[in-house]
């Protein structure tokens, strides 16, 4: 049996039949589930055709979640081929680092590289293309031809995550200016490292107090994130940082349900999902442009909350679809996937869960109730088994029989990923849907644990105070939390519709 490099036998690892070892939050005490592949394929197809369950958080969080996923799943393989798009079990044999260290932004950003501005601590930026006027400077990723010069190619796979990556480059440059003002004696590389550290700390805090607040069940967020308590995972920082498989193959995949059909990018352009993938370097900008067209630049006021900004007169702001079992995403490039012919993302996720030998949702809940009930009660986390109607999305007057129509066995023995998505449909909080208690617990413990494993994380270090937090949270009056819009404001000095910068000749 081949051991995972850098890991030891003491941790909570599970071993797949082909010798691949995965980290599990449940210490191999929950029985692995087995499913009929035909049933899973039926379910994946049914999930694609479900009706959308309305909206939840602002749509920017869908893509901040994708940005986080790329950061967490950065492959650190010697001679890593950047064209590898997804995990196969072979790749998992290699050391996968899951620290929230923005490796997707900083990997390869050495002095002299195309990712850096020549001779300085600034990150390089590209220009947005205007068809009949001068380019808009600093609004695209740096590119060599079409290809983005960034730490992770996946952050140029769709327009919104690509533009979000630009914002983190700008945030780095903001901190270079701030720190060099305070410490003019710092040399270029020390200044670069100091700015990098601040970007990472601010990003981690936004993930904890903004992103996770919008996604998690309030009781779980309060206990695990705000009060830094734990139930399942209390890792020692000497352990390697590895993402638990319950997160990577199930609960962490909630963002696939949040993808909207259309987005208003700014005052003049709205796009469908397929256009999001075309208008990137990887999509060759639809065959029409050489770099990001200025007409498609993102007005972030349409994607995140800016509490002090008036949004009257703007197009409808973009909300994410509510987290639910409705997942309608087709993958374009499926050649490198574990099941090459499968392009339906829902089916692919269900098969991935089987491949990773995940437990069923019911087995996972029963394990928690049998072993941690007192702790769950103490933290007021209301985990309980979903009933058949909840799992089948049956409501008075509107029954969908999602699982029963595929195989009645799935209602008593439900794939963990589907279970977590169905659990998100049970309640709303302040009018929006969030993950339920089980899904929230897996996500929260995974992220909290990863930050505890990293001696350089926000759990051990404090950030600079240049950026004032602005997020209000219900039931926590008098406190403000850092949110994504605070970082965007700092990175841009002010926020406006970027298409207003287009000067026509």
């Amino acid at each position, binding site marked *: 049996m081949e051991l995972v490099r850098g890991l030891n036998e003491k941790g909570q690892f599970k071993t797949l039949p082909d010798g691949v070892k995965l980290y599990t939050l449940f210490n191999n005490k929950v029985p692995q589930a087995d499913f009929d592949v035909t049933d899973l394929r039926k379910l994946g197809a049914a999930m694609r055709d479900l*009706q*959308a*369950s*309305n*909206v*939840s958080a602002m749509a920017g969080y869908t893509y901040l979640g994708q940005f986080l996923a790329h950061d967490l799943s950065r492959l650190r393989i010697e001679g890593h081929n950047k064209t590898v798009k997804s995990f196969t079990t072979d790749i998992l044999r290699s050391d996968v680092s899951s620290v929230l260290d923005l490796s997707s932004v900083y990997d390869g950003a050495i002095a002299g590289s195309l990712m850096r501005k020549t001779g300085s601590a600034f990150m390089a930026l590209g220009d947005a293309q205007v068809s009949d006027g001068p380019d808009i400077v600093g609004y695209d990723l740096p590119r060599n031809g079409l290809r983005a010069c960034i730490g992770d190619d996946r952050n140029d796979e769709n327009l919104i995550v690509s533009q979000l990556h630009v914002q983190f480059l700008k945030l780095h440059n903001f901190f270079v200016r701030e720190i060099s003002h305070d410490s003019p004696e710092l040399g270029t590389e020390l200044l670069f490292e100091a700015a990098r550290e601040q970007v990472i700390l601010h990003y981690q805090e936004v993930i904890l107090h903004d992103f996770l607040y919008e996604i998690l069940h309030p009781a779980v967020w309060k206990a695990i994130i705000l009060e830094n308590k734990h139930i399942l995972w209390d890792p020692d920082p000497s352990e390697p940082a590895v993402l638990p498989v319950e997160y990577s193959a199930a609960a962490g995949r909630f963002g696939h349900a949040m993808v*909207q*059909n*259309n987005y*208003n990018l700014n*005052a*003049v*352009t*709205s796009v*469908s999902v397929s256009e999001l993938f075309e208008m990137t370097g990887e999509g060759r900008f639809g065959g029409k442009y050489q770099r990001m067209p200025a007409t498609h630049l993102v007005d972030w006021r349409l994607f995140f909350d800016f509490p002090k900004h008036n949004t*009257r007169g703007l*197009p*409808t*702001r973009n*909300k994410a*679809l509510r987290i639910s079992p409705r997942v309608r995403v087709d993958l374009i490039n499926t050649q490198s996937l574990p099941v090459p012919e499968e392009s339906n993302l829902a089916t692919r996720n269900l098969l991935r869960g089987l491949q990773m030998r995940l437990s069923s949702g019911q087995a996972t809940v029963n394990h928690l109730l049998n072993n941690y009930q007192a702790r769950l009660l103490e933290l007021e986390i209301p985990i309980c088994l979903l009933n058949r109607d909840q799992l089948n999305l049956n*409501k008075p*007057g*509107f029954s969908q029989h999602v699982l029963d129509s595929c195989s009645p066995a799935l209602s008593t023995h439900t794939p963990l990923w589907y279970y977590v998505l169905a659990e998100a449909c049970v309640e*709303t909080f302040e*009018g*929006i*849907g969030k993950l339920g208690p089980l899904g929230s617990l897996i996500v929260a413990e995974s992220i909290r644990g990863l930050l505890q494993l990293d001696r350089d994380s926000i759990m051990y270090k404090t950030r600079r105070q240049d950026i004032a937090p602005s997020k209000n949270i219900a039931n926590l009056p008098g406190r403000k939390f850092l949110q994504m819009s605070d970082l965007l404001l700092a990175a841009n000095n002010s926020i406006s519709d970027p298409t207003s910068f287009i000067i026509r000749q």
Partner: protein
Amino acid sequence: MSVNDFWMDIQNSEWHSVGGSTVRNKQFNPFSDDDWRAGLVRDNEPYYPPSGVHIKIKSQEETRGEYSVDHHGKPEQVPATKLRTFTLEISGDDFLGKEALSAARFLVVGDHAISSPLTLSSTKSVVVLVRLYTASDGKQVMVNELIWSVQYDKTPGSTKTFYDIQKWFCCRYP
């Protein structure tokens, strides 16, 4: 239903959505799943209120006085009238059309009301027509017809537009 009935009934009630809409029921949609127009209809689904949405009517009545206009060289008197308008105060579960519907002003015209045009994006706008019906079980239902205009060809200068009308329903609350 008389004019007064509509005005009285709509403002004297609170309404709640049960999530019902023609866009969520395939039998009402004339396009097959593989028809590109079905995709345009389906894309608009998140704009419709789900169950768990409550609506209060905030009404306003203004008296406009009598005035005179020139009609082919002769003065003509336009009689005084009352302009009846309302806006929607929407609470409960969130949905994509909430901001736009909350901003809309509805003008009562006889036994129905029509909204100001709601511009949702550079290619998509909608007008809402509100009527009240009494169902066979005697319960009153608010029927909102959304009249969509979607520019589907994004070639600069193109005006190719798809029109669609879909309904969503609210019941008197409680």
